[in-house]
């Protein structure tokens, strides 16, 4: 896998993690914001500046790709590279979780 992409994106911010997670299905920024709210019991609300900046950065780095535009909203989808990076991050979080439970 592309080493720079891994270096730059792992560990991920919560916002980037949820963006990649949601983009396993095609979606646009505001839809992701609402979905993340649902997933986290309204605890995490990604702000528009953060969302826009992250989407451009992820697209530039090839982790997501632009699919089409719908009513002035850009729809994206995760790429194979994005899936690989997300899988690696999930592994890291799993390890974190495992070790946390052992320490409890």
């Amino acid at each position, binding site marked *: 896998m592309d080493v720079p992409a891994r270096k730059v994106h792992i560990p991920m911010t*919560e*916002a980037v993690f949820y963006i990649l997670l949601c983009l396993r299905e095609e979606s646009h920024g505001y839809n992701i*914001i609402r979905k993340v709210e649902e997933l986290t019991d309204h605890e995490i609300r990604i702000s*528009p500046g953060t969302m826009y900046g*992250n989407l451009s950065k992820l697209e530039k780095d090839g982790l997501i790709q632009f699919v089409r535009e719908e009513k*002035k*909203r850009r729809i994206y989808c995760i790429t194979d590279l994005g899936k690989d990076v997300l899988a690696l991050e999930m592994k890291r979080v799993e390890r974190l979780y495992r070790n946390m439970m052992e320490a409890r």
Partner: protein
Amino acid sequence: MKGMKTELHIFTIADWEKEEQYLRKRHREGWKFVKVNLPGFYHFERCKPEDVVYQLDYNQEGLEHKEEYVQMFKDCGWEYVQDLGGYCYFRKPVSEMQGEEEIFCDDESRLDMMRRVFAGRYWPFFILLMLLILPNLSAQFQNSDADAPVLLVLSLILLAIYVWVAASFGYRYWKIIKRLRK
């Protein structure tokens, strides 16, 4: 015209937080921000005093896809007011917020914005300094004309302003980095 006013206020390129607070304060006093022109003329109109949060984003790429960019903020309840010199002005009334809201929700993206300002505004500014002021300064030192001291002082004042702006930006950048490392 009654119910309108214009104020001159100069903010340096790294002072967007002060500018946000300034606009919020005016709105609370009953002056709604209408527009700003260079070098810093802020136009206001009379309104009902209200607590409205103002936020600036610096995003060249967003401005290239302005419709989609503005739409995302609109979806989140942020009204787009205008853009100037790469900065976009957004506002949202506190009454429509759930708790404290900002256009950025983590330090990583705040830092990204600083990087964009740095790349877009700061480097050109710095290179200009190197090309204009420094050669000028050294020329003044060797100049023996009667008005040379005046020019020298002027160049030094300019240099001091540049250094001050550079230092304040560096300091803010360093503060965010420090917070991130905690």
